[in-house]
């Protein structure tokens, strides 16, 4: 195979093989990540119990379904970290990518997409255990499964590109940690990662509607675990497509100006 599809298939397969070598380390990492949703889940189930079984119509079983799907969406969401850009630039790792005739974004997209294959395989037993422990209630139609399978890749693309743009700020300054902290905090609160967006106060929920974060967490989760109408189901996909386009545009522009400032320090 030639061209981009060829690149994706080779880089993706390399990622599968590499990451499968590190399966134990991958597994410990994933187990550590499970603590986060389990804590949220326990807290909200406790609240639901105290409120007579449901918070804003969300029952303990609904919360369990939400946070179990969360674990898969979160794993799909792991992309090249913006913190990695400092190394990339400082060690001159970008130099090699620059002489290749493909936009470097494709390598990251392909590599992390391949990694997902390993991650999803490792995820299945974790989800099974969580389901046994927390008794989720699911009510899923075939259409929802279909939309979900598309939506998790939409989430992957959006988050990849936004974090790429954020990481590229490193071209201008390396003092970025405060900026990243703020970004990730906004994401945590307004994406549906911390809590289902229905539980936010109205003004925050409105803000979340206009930001991309919910399309990388809350929306895909609710497709499977929530109760979306047909319009919301397809509308979400359309919004994801729009954010993918915006993300791609931002990457293209910021990359063009940023790479001019790149001077491969240390090589």
């Amino acid at each position, binding site marked *: 195979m030639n061209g981009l599809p060829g690149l994706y298939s080779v880089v993706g397969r390399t990622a599968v093989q590499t990451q499968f070598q590190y399966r*134990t*380390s*991958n597994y*410990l*990492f994933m*187990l*550590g*990540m*499970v*603590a*986060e949703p*389990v*804590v949220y889940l*326990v*807290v*909200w189930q*406790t*609240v639901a119990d*105290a*409120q007579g079984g449901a*918070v*804003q119509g969300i029952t303990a079983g609904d919360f369990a379904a939400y946070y179990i799907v969360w674990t898969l969406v979160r794993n799909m969401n792991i992309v090249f970290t913006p913190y990695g850009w400092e190394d990339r630039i400082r060690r001159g790792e970008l130099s090699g990518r620059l002489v290749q005739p493909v936009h470097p974004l494709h390598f990251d997209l392909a590599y992390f997409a391949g990694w997902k294959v390993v991650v999803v395989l490792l995820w299945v037993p974790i989800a099974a255990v969580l389901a046994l*422990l927390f008794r989720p209630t699911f009510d899923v139609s075939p259409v929802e499964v279909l939309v979900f399978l598309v939506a998790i890749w939409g989430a992957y693309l959006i988050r990849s590109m936004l974090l790429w743009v954020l990481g590229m700020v490193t071209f201008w300054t390396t003092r970025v*940690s*405060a900026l990243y*902290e*703020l970004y990730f*905090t906004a994401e*945590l*609160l307004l994406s549906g990662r*911390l*809590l289902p967006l229905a*539980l*936010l*106060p109205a003004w925050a929920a409105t803000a979340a509607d206009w930001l991309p974060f919910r399309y990388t967490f809350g929306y895909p989760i609710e497709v499977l675990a929530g109760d979306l109408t047909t319009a919301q189901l397809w509308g979400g996909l359309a919004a994801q497509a729009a954010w993918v386009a915006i993300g791609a545009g931002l990457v293209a522009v910021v990359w063009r100006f940023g790479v001019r400032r790149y001077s491969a320090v240390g090589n």
Partner: protein
Amino acid sequence: MQALRLVGTYLRIGVQAELQYRSNVLFSVVQSLVAVGTSLAVLALVFSHTDDLGGWSGSELLVVMGVYVLLGGVLRSVVQPSMTQLMDDVQHGTLDFVLTKPADAMLLVSIRRIELWQAVDVLVGAGIVGYALTRLDTRPGALAVAGFAVALALGVVVLWAFWLLLTTAAFWVVRTDSLVELLSGMYQAGRWPVTIYPGWLRIGFTFLVPLAFAITVPAQALTGRLSGWLLLGAAAFTVALVAVTRWVWTLGVRAYSGASA
């Protein structure tokens, strides 16, 4: 006595090394404020839907959060840096330089590095606890405060011993970064009192990852939930954990093969 002097010297050197990088304090402060702001927002969100979480009021949970932030600061400023160093040394064989020193090696590896600016969280955590106390319905008496001090000291020892215990796994498996990742993930669970977790999870957070003794018990002291027996149990657990850590450490050093391997 000699051990105490040694700790004093090492800490002084560590602080001096860190004072060279004063501008880092700014980043630690920003980081700490963002983290605390997020935690407060989470508490506010939860309590906008309920006014009681497993028998704890909002102000009481603020105490738990303060202790969590405070001990997190201790963990990131003193415990974790030394443990990361230990892991690196085992991997590269440079632990030789510690083992050949005429002092207790387990003590030495625990105090070699500090990241002073991370200790900002200790102050912030203490501030949160102090503020929460002004909002409690019943102020803790002198006895409760003394119980808190003891429980907090035990908590520091528990966290240190537990982290060291897991880091010694490096003697056998070398790469333990993901283990650290796992632990940091688990530590987050201590943000809430372990009593809200369902039975099996509560047992896990009490004995497997000792968050209960480290964080919940000190918070219980300030909110009128601590009995003498519980404090005694915490002390017994701490002693047992340190003994186990000591034993595993001895085994680990024996398994360590040095730089020439």
